[in-house]
């Protein structure tokens, strides 16, 4: 598995983190104070990711 493949899978994991942190959980309506700036994709590095070799290869080729 080359580094590009790993980078893409990291990106997906980060999107999963962002989706949860920004959209899920207990919601306090009317008290959200957010402005968006420079949301880079980085790897949190604590999550298990189970995926087939095929998935990684498809990620590598940019099919998903």
């Amino acid at each position, binding site marked *: 598995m080359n580094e590009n493949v790993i980078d893409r899978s990291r990106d997906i994991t980060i999107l999963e983190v962002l989706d*949860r*942190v920004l959209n*899920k959980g*207990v919601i306090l309506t009317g008290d959200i104070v*957010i*402005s968006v700036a420079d949301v*880079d994709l980085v790897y949190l590095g604590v999550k298990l990711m189970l995926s*087939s070799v*095929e998935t990684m290869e498809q990620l590598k080729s940019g099919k998903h």
Partner: protein
Amino acid sequence: MGKMIYSILKAAEDPGQLPAVLSGMRGISDADFHEVSYDDITAVVCDVQRAGLVTDRSATMDYAGVIDSLFKDFTLLPVRFGSVMESEGEIRNMLERNHIEIQKNLLKVEGKVEFGLKVFCDTEKLKADRSIEPEGTIKSVNDAEAGQKNQVYMDYVKKKLAEYRLEESVLSYVNSVIKEITECLTGVEATGKFKKMASPANIIDALFLIKKEMTAELIRVVKDLQTRYPDLNFMLTGPWPPYNFVDVTIS
């Protein structure tokens, strides 16, 4: 100045446990954490300047990291990033007003973890494999008397009908995979949520809430599913705090 709420958790049996855990962590803008409690529930909060709250890389990831760290030792409900209240008194009132609902949710997620399962597929290949010809009932209307105008109309209807049947066929396939996943997960005792066709490639976007001790079994099941469906790609992520299984909205 406001109080940013990271999570709401169930009080530990050892009252010294949470302060000990929090003492080793820093909140947004390097602020100290502190607790705001009502009865047996506690909100983990830190001071924040409302004007300075920005969803940049470090703030968002640090936020998730704090919730992850707390999740290792406590049953908790993650709170959405950016939830700020004015004072400890206001937070305590919020906990009191929503005590029953919060307790109910804490009970639901106690001892459990969330996993995400995405199933990817080459949808174009799937459609090609399942391509369906329009049925003869349409053709029977298409006789010599139909004329050129009707022909254009009939061609359009046939095309749309074929597209509809193809979508229906793909959806039927997705439903059959979901049924298989659900059956395979019976032994895992998972609470599941399924979203179909989240994107053209992501045919299933599923979330599961399982007991922590069932993690190895879930991984085994997903590996088994991958073997059974070589044309699909299964991607499992987790364990996560129960972000998607919290049902508390506070006005």
